[in-house]
């Protein structure tokens, strides 16, 4: 791409802009007399003018028509200009109906209100529907067709027919035809047409279609053939919806599983590599969440523009803070307790109480507000499933963390040393690996992972000093279920527990599902005391 080409592109862009602006201006000039004519004569004349405006098929007239329908359209006595007036105290704030330009405020005495009645309103509504159904932007047409489907407006049938004839976009066309089918089922139409409409709705296959078809099938006056068709369609849709339900449950399960994975994966490292039960693990998650809170606070006060990137800033910070705390814990307490796992458990439990109370003293016992950046909020529809962005990102994030950890453990010298120490501590030491250092760093890594898990969990959970407590038992269950010393086991364990839990919930309720899971794990441990993927060999007896 040479500079010349670039210049040409730029030129083309500028020209394009100019063409568009002039085109728009011309539109306004053509439309202005038509809009001003709305004020002339009585209802009949106004209605004719509405028809004339609708005939332009220009969406720019829509604001004027809407204002007219709402009784907000006025004629300015001074220059006979038709304007939109909205109440501003005793006066009216004026805007231009075509350009949307503000025209100052005037007292109501300087204006004549354009009268409107119900007949006129009906005309306006269908004109508006037609305008949006004919709008040049496919998104607008789509939205209009969707709205027509939901409202089942019997009088919109002619409009829909016209729009369908003119439609070029296949997806918009489908929605329009579905809207038309819904209307056809509601009006008096030949039976074959109605059966065809049922077929169209069956193709749509969602809950809205289901409710319309249920209405048709349940109506005693419906002819037999039509009712049969509707019943068949309902069965089909129900099967379809059941499938989507399964999909939704799987998604919820994966989402829960990813949260469990994030919370448990750091534990899997410390427990797996060092055989250390770190009961303060949940508090590392909690500290990670508080780091996110603090980063957001600083951003709010100093650079609000960076808010979208707050999580990206919080991630390395949370990792660093919790990893350092982890190393300090290992050097200060845990290294004196190696070979005494039960004592380690108690000491780290005590530590967790101290950390909790420390956070409570510094930040207060109440929940702190951690905001979702824009790209984390909202949801989208996938077929019949609703997927929220924050859950989606957490699933992606947990898998990334898992992959990253795998890479570190399999491809770096540090990972090699860690694995060597896991498999045979004394032999590793004999080969010149500084096992105390590896212990400290591994513990730091596990704690750091817990910290970044906290960043993610701050997006879906309450950030309070008790945040970690809620995850610690679940994390242990995941690690024990998956098998100690095996990250794949943790992944499989987390996802399995998540999905099974979500499948139990509709039948048993959330609490009972959880109880059943716990009982299941207790029984499972009896069968396989070393978890799903147990380490083999001498490490088992250690």
């Amino acid at each position, binding site marked *: 791409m040479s500079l010349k080409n670039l210049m040409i592109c730029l030129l083309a862009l500028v020209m394009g802009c100019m063409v568009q602006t002039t085109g728009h201006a011309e539109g306004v000039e053509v439309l202005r007399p038509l809009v001003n004519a709305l004020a002339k004569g009585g209802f009949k004349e106004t209605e004719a003018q509405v028809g004339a405006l609708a005939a332009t098929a220009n969406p720019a007239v829509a604001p004027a028509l809407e204002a007219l329908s709402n009784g907000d359209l006025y004629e300015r006595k001074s220059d006979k200009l038709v304007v939109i007036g909205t109440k501003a105290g005793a006066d009216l704030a004026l805007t231009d109906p075509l350009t949307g330009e503000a025209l100052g405020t005037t007292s109501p005495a300087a204006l004549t209100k354009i009268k409107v009645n119900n007949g006129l309103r009906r005309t306006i509504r269908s004109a508006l529907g037609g305008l949006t159904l004919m709008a040049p932007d496919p998104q607008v047409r789509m939205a209009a067709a969707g709205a027509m489907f939901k409202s089942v407006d019997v009088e919109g049938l002619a409009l829909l027919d016209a729009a369908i004839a003119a439609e070029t976009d296949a997806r918009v066309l489908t929605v329009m035809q579905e809207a038309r089918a819904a209307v056809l089922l509601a009006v008096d139409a030949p039976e074959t047409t109605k059966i065809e409409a049922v077929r169209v709705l069956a193709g749509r296959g969602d809950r809205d279609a289901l409710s319309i078809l249920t209405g048709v099938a349940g109506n005693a006056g419906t002819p037999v053939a039509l009712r049969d068709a509707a019943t068949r369609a309902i069965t089909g849709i129900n099967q379809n919806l059941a499938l989507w339900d399964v999909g939704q449950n799987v998604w919820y399960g994966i989402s829960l599983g990813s949260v469990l994975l994030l919370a448990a994966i750091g534990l899997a490292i410390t427990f797996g590599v060092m055989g250390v039960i770190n009961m303060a693990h949940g508090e590392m998650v909690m500290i990670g969440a508080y780091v996110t809170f603090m980063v957001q606070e600083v951003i709010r006060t100093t650079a609000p523009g960076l808010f979208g990137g707050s999580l990206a800033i919080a991630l390395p910070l949370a990792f660093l803070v919790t990893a350092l705390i982890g190393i300090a814990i290992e050097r200060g307490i845990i290294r004196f307790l190696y070979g005494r796992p039960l004592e380690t*458990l108690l000491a780290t439990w005590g530590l967790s109480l101290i950390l909790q*109370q420390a956070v409570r003293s510094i930040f207060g016992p109440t929940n702190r507000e951690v905001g979702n950046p824009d790209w984390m909020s909202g949801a989208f529809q996938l077929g019949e499933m609703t997927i929220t962005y924050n859950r989606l990102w957490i699933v992606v994030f947990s898998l990334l963390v898992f992959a990253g950890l795998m890479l570190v453990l399999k491809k770096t010298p540090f990972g090699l040393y860690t694995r060597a120490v896991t498999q045979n501590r004394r032999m590793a030491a004999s080969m010149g690996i500084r096992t105390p250092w590896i212990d400290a760093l591994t513990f730091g890594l596990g704690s750091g992972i817990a910290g970044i898990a906290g960043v993610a969990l701050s997006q879906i959970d309450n950030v309070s000093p008790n945040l970690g407590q809620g995850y610690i038992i679940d994390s242990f*269950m995941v690690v024990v279920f998956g098998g100690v010393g095996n990250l794949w086991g943790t992944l499989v364990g987390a996802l399995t527990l998540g999905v099974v839990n979500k499948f139990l919930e509709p039948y048993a309720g959330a609490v009972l599902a959880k109880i059943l899971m716990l009982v299941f794990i207790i029984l499972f441990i009896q069968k396989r005391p070393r978890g799903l993927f147990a380490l083999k060999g001498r490490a088992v007896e250690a």
Partner: protein
Amino acid sequence: MITSFLVRAFDRQAALFLAILGLVIVAVPALNLLLPPDHPLHVPTYAVSLMGKYLTYALLALSVDLVWGYCGILSLGHGAFFALGGYAMGMYLMRQIGPRGVYGDPVLPDFMVFLNWKELPWYWTGFDMFPYALMMVLLVPGVLAFIFGWFAFRSRVSGVYLSIITQALTYALLLAFFRNDMGFGGNNGLTDFKDILGFPVQADGTRAALFVASGLALVLCFLLARSVTRSKLGKVLVAVRDAESRTRFLGYRVEHYKLFVWTLSAMMAGLAGALYVPQVGIINPGEFEPANSIEAVIWVAVGGRGTLFGPIFGAVLVNYGKTWFTAVLPEVWLFALGALFVVVTLFLPKGLVGLAAMVRARLPRHRTLKSEPATPSTGEPQPAE
């Protein structure tokens, strides 16, 4: 020589300890009931209940010590047995309310009327009879522990895995008892008790009697635990604790020994819970919190595990500390408790009793001369690392 000397000394201390306990059991109610309220030595009723609560905690600590100190099973779910015993007692007390509840139903407790239940669930029948309730206080935790232990010990689940699943057990029960459908009062638990054996629960005399009952239960369980640990059975338990595989290879059925002591311990915990409930006047699912069970473990660790009076001492001391701190410096309590966990595990692996023994060992040994071990090697075993 020195160990057996220490053992004998501790023996004497144990007798001394029982004497002190006996004195407390007699003196506290006497000072409460016989002296006028304005007398300087008068013990107020709330203090009697508070001390009674400590005694039930001490009994819980004793039961934890029996499995942890002597058999190496670290239970993080003993609070579950405690709470189950408490619920059994609570059910008896609920039935004693009779028509005096808010809704005045002659049979159904208030919360069942509130939930629109029409009749008593089958598992509530019989709880209006005290002997039946007392039997359930021992049976329910006992049977649960037996089933749980039967599976766990047969599959050789041990160490931290066992600790984690005991925690899962109490957590599952916590969630279950929170449910209203369970028929145990859900979130609010069982409360608003009126009578026990026909005596009003709130009355001074009843409180004193409950205190005495707690003390006697503690003494009896102490003696029971002592005879168990001093028998051949107790020796095998210690062997299991210190070298489980070796004991198994010597031909002992390790899981049977474990199961016995585990079930016995659970029943003791249940009894403690049953005595706890009438004195505090409420039992709710919060008692199943895993944190409570872990706290009971620290009482044992502070006092000294593997000794029977250490945990009793530890339980009273830590709980007195808790009462004092939460009244005077509520923010500091968790710091203190957390620090206690860390300090005890790092520096006092044998607890305060171990510390006392260490101090004693460093003192001039003028006593060794008159020491004459009566029974060789009947000592309080040293806790395993």
